[in-house]
């Protein structure tokens, strides 16, 4: 786990260093579109999380909370 996490951290640090000039508020029109949000349809996301966690060994990664289930 350590090396991928380290790689992700280094990638983020490099990306931050290589960042062009900060985007100004009046340049964010496209970024404000709903499709650009990381938070999408919550009910759909819950279904997806429940379905995948019931048939795969890995789960989660995008948030905290949410109860477990039998899912046998």
């Amino acid at each position, binding site marked *: *786990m350590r090396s*991928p*996490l380290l790689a*992700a951290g280094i990638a*983020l640090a490099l*990306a*931050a260093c290589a*960042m*062009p000039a*900060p*985007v100004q*508020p*009046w*340049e*964010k*029109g*496209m*970024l*404000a*579109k*709903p*499709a*650009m*949000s*990381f*938070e999408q*349809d*919550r*009910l*759909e996301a*819950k*279904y997806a999380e*429940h*379905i*995948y966690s019931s*048939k*795969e*060994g*890995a*789960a*989660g*990664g*995008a*948030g*905290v*909370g*949410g*109860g*477990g*289930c*039998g899912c*046998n």
Partner: protein
Amino acid sequence: MAATRQAPGGAILLAALALPGLAGAENAPEQASISLKYLDYQDRQPNLERVGVHSPSLELVLPVAGRWALRGALVSDLISGASPRYHTAVSGASRFSEKRNAADLSLTRYFARASATLAAGRSKETDYDSRFVSTQATVSSADNNTTWLFGAGVANDRIDPVNRAVKDEHKRTLDLMLGVTQVLGTRDIGQLVLGHVRGRGYFSNPYKFVDTRPRTHDQNSALLRWNHHFSASGATGRLSYRYTTDSYALRSHTVQQEYVRPLKGGWTLTPSLRLYTQSAARFYFDPVYDTRFGAPFPPGFSFAARRDLSADQRLAAYGALTAGLKVEKQLGRDTTLDFKWEQYWQRAGWRLFGSGSPGLERFSARSIQAGVTHRW
């Protein structure tokens, strides 16, 4: 409140001082909304329909006094079918029919460049009762180009299987999350989320033969997401990669791509593709059985010596592919209809970065969702 400014090109652009998409939750919703959705799910193995689920759900979002938002959701799963008892063997497993009800509630307080959320929920089945509480916070930089995410949650699950294999067992988990969302350009946003889940208690499956798992289960995850807006078409590409590793020595890689394409007349099409691969848990054993006891006991099995063992297909090494298509239709300003179809295929031979577990049957699943959201 967003201000406007005349851009050099002459077009009036929104000065989105606080973006709804930047971190997902730092802007109070301006409208209340109610969403209803229905899921129909069916999974299969060759010549066998395994588990089917019918699942209606409801979500309500209420803005309060401009600085608060209350969110509540209910879901009910009606599940029926047959699960394998070991590896992919379904023969001998009793068919089951079960109902799960779940509810959660969250309250978010919004500040100028921050938000704080408290949430709680419960999921209840005949043999499984889970309760959780969680908290999450976001803090943005002065220019709103960087947002930090912090989260923590605890869950307490009680397991009381109907076959009495165990009684009043518990599982407790602690979730921790740290993330950062960064505006990368006028058309790009990226996000990195690191997660750690610490679990203690009963993780075995009481309905499977020879399933004894460690009483500790820790998982680490890293999730990278990147959204890109295509100016020419008005479409959005959404790419994500997730890496997980856990104390079972199970490693997984997930890549997901969505392409959100708005069309004329209020229609939006979103095709999606997901690739998943995982290694086997260290205590998963292949379907090679002891010559004395036969299936499902692994070679050298001893009833006297307790050791961690599982023949659960979900802990095997395999790869999976999901293809999906979502269709949305905007009706007027405040109502949206959506329909989504997804097909999932799982094959041992599709595992990446290694070979898949031998002897697993092919597995597939189909899900259909239909929903409606109304805002006021």
